[in-house]
């Protein structure tokens, strides 16, 4: 018992060392820090949107319809007199929550499927691998569109559709990693102590794939944000009066000659957000897994 305690303590120390090391590496990377700060700022904006936005996202100032940027409407208003700045602020909520919640759904399905396939092998692996291939056989955006057709539009359904579309990549990565990990001696040791399969998968194998999971998630979040914007742009995602950047851009492009800001400002928000996640993802991957580092 004592030995076990000592062992787990040692594990804790080494793992904090590992993440400390990752943090140290990340801190040296200026681009990563700027991206991280931007993402933190976006999270604050999303959380306190009602406090930050000068107007409610649905408020219609009928006296100022399609107004250019002014003192009372910093980025102008849309065709219903809604404040564009406020709608962009509220749109942060949709984009970030899609990125995070859809990716959590995708991650859960992907890790479970990948772990089961990799650990049990044999027919379980064949079955799950074929399911992964079948789900991977539909173009992601079109697949999401077809799923939205079944479950209907709306924010929650966007989470579900994007989550269901995005899990196959994660499943593949986790499967191949578990295939290697299960050959380790500590797995055999756990078996000989009488540990069950569930215990081994959840206590020994999945925790060891954490770096892969983190890197995969940070790389997938910007993709998911783009998918949401695309779905909403096509009119199949988030519906008004809830604000989504893709949907604002979709309507705003009609007014591009007279009111370029209507398209421009939500576009800048979208690109900066995706860029920040992409750059942070690159830096995290370099810090967590030097083998995958790009040549610079």
């Amino acid at each position: 018992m004592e030995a076990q305690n000592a062992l787990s303590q040692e594990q804790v120390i080494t793992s904090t060392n590992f993440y400390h090391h990752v943090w140290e590496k990340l801190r040296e990377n200026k681009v990563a820090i700027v991206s991280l700060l931007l993402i933190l700022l976006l999270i604050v904006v999303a959380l306190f949107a009602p406090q930050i936005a000068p107007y409610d996202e649905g408020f219609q100032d009928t006296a100022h319809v399609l107004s250019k940027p002014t003192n009372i409407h910093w980025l102008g208003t849309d065709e219903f007199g809604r404040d564009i700045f406020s709608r962009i602020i509220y749109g942060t909520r949709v984009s970030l929550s899609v990125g995070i919640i859809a990716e959590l759904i995708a991650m859960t399905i992907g890790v479970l499927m990948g772990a089961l396939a990799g650990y049990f092998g044999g027919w379980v692996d064949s079955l799950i691998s074929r399911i992964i291939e079948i789900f991977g056989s539909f173009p992601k955006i079109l697949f999401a569109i077809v799923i939205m057709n079944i479950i209907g539009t709306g924010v929650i359904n966007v989470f579900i559709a994007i989550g269901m579309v995005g899990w196959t990549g994660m499943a593949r990565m986790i499967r191949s990693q578990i295939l290697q990990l299960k050959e380790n001696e500590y797995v055999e040791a756990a078996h000989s102590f009488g540990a069950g399969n569930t215990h081994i998968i959840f206590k020994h194998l999945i925790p060891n794939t954490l770096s892969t999971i983190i890197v995969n998630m940070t790389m997938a979040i910007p993709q998911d944000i783009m998918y949401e914007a695309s779905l909403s742009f096509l009119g199949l995602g988030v519906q008004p009066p809830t604000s989504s950047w893709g949907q604002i851009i979709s309507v705003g492009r009609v007014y591009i000659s007279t009111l370029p800001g209507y398209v421009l400002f939500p576009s800048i928000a979208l690109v900066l957000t995706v860029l920040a996640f992409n750059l942070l993802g690159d830096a995290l991957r370099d810090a967590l897994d030097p083998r995958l580092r790009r040549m610079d």
Partner: protein
Amino acid sequence: MKKYIRSRLIQTLVVLIGVTLLTFIMVNVAPGDAATVMTEKITDQAAIDRINAQLGLDKPYFVQYFLFLRNLVFFDFGTSYFKYKPVMQLIIEGFRVTGTLAVTIILFALVVGLAMGIMAALNRGKFWDQLIMGLSTLGMALPSFLLAILLQYIFGLKMQLLPLSGLTSWQGYVLPSVTMGMICAAEVARLTRTSMLDVLGQDYMRTATAKGISRQRIILVHGLKNALIPILTFLGNSFKAILGGAVLVETVFGLNGIGRLLVDAIMQRDTPIIQGVTVYIAMIFVLVNLGIDLFYGLIDPRIRLAKDND
């Protein structure tokens, strides 16, 4: 190799059956059957039943599934509920537009991406490298519909050089192809740069230089040849991504591609089109994957040997 091909073909067949099943389920669990949609104002149950019988929607699900498979094999999905044209004709027209788009996008991405990647690798760390890599990073964060709107505004609306939308002539393809081509080229440039740097550092490159072979020849013949495999894989995957992702560009530029056909059909609940488009796109995906795998098996003995030993 034979064993590898055989096992890959069997797998593909299983996946194809799975794809048809998943498509069938997805289309049939969607709310609102055709008759209700077509006869929104009619409340006569007999009329609704008659339409359902005509469309075979009154039969048990497994019979409907086999009818669906039959339609698939004989390229006959009947007539569109709303466009009053044979579904297959619409699908073929859609694939023609999106397919042309895919080819021009890939050509553009290949030419621009390779050139930029080589230029970046040769100027490693200098101004051009930083500029190209910066653009590439930006390109990967740019949703295609945004770039489409921007190019449409600049070249269509302001300068009036190219058509705003529609496909009355070949010029209609230019802006959509350039839009997605630029995004694709961003990734090709990055891959090319990485592979070129990798190759330029190899011993045999130094040997080639020592043998007095010109720098241009070294870069083009030796360097590019080695960079080509990851790029070809990427392009195989891009082809699939374009097939799906083109829907956004098609929407902005008003092209009747396959993606636009699907989105319109979904908005109108035109089930035969939804079924046909979804299943054929998925089948093309599966076949492209098979092609990529067989190509890999051909060039990399490790892959096919590993499979043969299974």
